């Protein structure tokens, strides 16, 4: 009894210390830095606000509204990404490669988010979807012919992701909460065992190496990944800001209210899998043609599913765009910043970062940044 009380006190003490250090951090670091940033950035916000107003008037209802500074940051980021081949070589590391990989994973993180983050039906098995697309491409190349044109293999592979997505999504019609999540988890474990168990057909542990890479030119390859990523971002943002996104969120917040509103929750839940599986398929195809390798470890293993979730968490779940930033953070941390560190320590550090974000900034780093930028000068949210 006394022991338990002591432990409880200890926990309270720790919580108090944590709270105090957070508030110290806030008053002595965040606020001063924030006010300096505000003073510096306010003129920029004002300068860009006519453009933001024009954007909000014309496209706001389709993609959400922005403040002047948010629009500037958005445009600068996109321009910086397009200009990456100009600046990336000057940074130590292999940034053009890393950024290209990050683009593919950004697609996965967004696609996971539009289904799991929005509807609250958390999938632990999304790598089965990208895996289906990657394996479909590899199987077509190996079994049908190495010279199959991309306009055949890409749609068929995306369709494979869609079929697997609907199969994984079907339990969502009957199961809720952890049971649904467990089923998606098991789906990925099954897929992995199938690739090993039917190794003569599915290539086993070493998978397939026969897929033709799009290109080996690092600059061109980067653009092959960046442009589809941006198109997926625009498409999913459109979906997320539409009625459909609104219903997805309502399913997460209060599923019975959706039915009471005369909306078929089953149809919308399946639709969320469609909206997610198509970009997952696109990402899977890109990953297959990135290096030409399709293996269980690069596509199927459950770690991949968890990493997609981690990226979405880092950026901010339920926003589609923030997971892009989360994916870039995660991949750059893993492949560049922590490059010299051993495999285990590297992943240990990464997961600690994810844990820290879950505890201290549950709504995501990128989303917080976005709102902080929006709060400068602007009067909109």
């Amino acid at each position, binding site marked *: 009894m006394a022991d338990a009380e002591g432990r409880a006190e200890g926990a309270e003490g720790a919580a108090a210390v944590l709270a105090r250090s957070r508030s110290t951090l806030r008053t002595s670091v965040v606020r001063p830095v924030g006010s300096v940033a505000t003073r510096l950035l306010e003129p920029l916000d004002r300068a860009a606000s006519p453009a933001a107003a024009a954007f909000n008037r014309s496209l706001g209802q389709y993609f959400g509204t922005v403040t002047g500074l948010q629009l500037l940051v958005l445009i600068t980021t996109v321009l910086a990404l397009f200009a990456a081949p100009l600046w990336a070589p000057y940074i130590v590391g292999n940034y053009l490669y890393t950024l290209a990989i990050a683009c593919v994973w950004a697609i996965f993180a967004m696609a996971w988010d539009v289904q799991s983050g929005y509807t609250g039906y958390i999938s632990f098995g999304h790598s089965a979807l990208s895996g289906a697309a990657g394996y479909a491409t590899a199987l077509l190349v190996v079994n049908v012919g190495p010279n199959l044109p991309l306009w055949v293999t890409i749609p068929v592979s995306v369709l494979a992701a869609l079929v697997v997505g609907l199969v994984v999504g079907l339990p969502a019609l009957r199961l809720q909460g952890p049971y649904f999540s467990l089923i998606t988890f098991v789906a990925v474990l099954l897929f992995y065992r199938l690739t090993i168990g039917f190794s003569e057909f599915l290539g086993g542990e070493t998978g397939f190496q026969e897929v033709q890479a799009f290109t080996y030119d690092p600059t061109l390859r980067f653009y092959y990944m960046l442009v589809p990523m941006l198109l997926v971002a625009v498409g999913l943002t459109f979906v997320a800001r539409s009625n459909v996104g609104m219903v997805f969120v*309502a399913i997460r917040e209060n599923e019975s209210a959706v039915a009471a509103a005369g909306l078929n929750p089953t149809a919308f839940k399946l639709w969320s899998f469609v909206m997610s599986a198509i970009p997952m398929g696109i990402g899977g195809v890109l990953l297959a043609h990135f290096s030409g390798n399709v293996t269980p470890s690069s596509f199927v293993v459950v770690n991949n599913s968890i990493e997609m979730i981690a990226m979405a968490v880092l950026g901010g779940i339920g926003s589609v765009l923030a997971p892009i930033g989360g994916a870039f953070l995660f991949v750059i941390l893993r492949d560049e910043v922590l490059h010299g560190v051993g495999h285990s320590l590297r992943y240990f550090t990464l997961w600690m970062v994810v844990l820290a974000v879950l505890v201290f900034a549950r709504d995501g780093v990128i989303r917080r940044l976005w709102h902080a930028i929006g709060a400068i000068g602007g009067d909109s949210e």
Partner: protein
Amino acid sequence: MSLLSVEGLTKRFGGLVAVDDVSFAVEAGEIVGLIGPNGAGKSTVFDCLMGVHDVTAGEIRFDGAAITDWPTHRIVTHGMARVSQESNPIGRYSVAANIRLFTLPNSVFSFHGGASDAEIAEYAARVDLDGRLDERPGELPHADVRRLEIAKALATEPDLLLLDEPFAGMNQAEIRTLSEQIESFREAGTTIVVVDHNMGGLMDLVDRTLVLHNGRKLAAGEPDDIVANDAVQQAYLAGEGA
């Protein structure tokens, strides 16, 4: 033909018979009271009407269709809406967005559509909520949260509105206002069934009353007759005593 007709409705949960062979009909333009002590089965009847529960036996016909086995969303689209006892607005949406959700077309391909801002303001105005459209449900007083629930139901343009304990937790002035508003819904063409567990508040509002007790239909008739009915008095007294 009646707007709503319920024949031999029975709902069993395991060994418990929550609703036992209940039959009644509601004509277009009526306001019908459904009363009974706590646990009488009133909300279960509503759940069965709305397709929330599968019924054990019986048939429900509404606006010319046998809706017994229909899913909730289809029943709503066909013109029936229910305001539950519990308020469950979506906290992160404004009052206006909460109402808007109930106006969206039931199609996954409908990316844009639903009511305009003016239409949403109109639904809100029918329960005097039009001044609070931009607020979050969490910022509203209890009575306004209840009004929001009614506005959401109205936004589905129902022919038949089921109100489950609409007066619960309201003061006398709020009850009077809400009664007048319910009367105005009827004048606008909506038929209404109101559930309440106490007899008093309802009797001025309703045309006809149906009394449930232990899942069975105990009495039905004009409000005055019901108040004078011995069996009804007994049921309520027994309920109070227990």
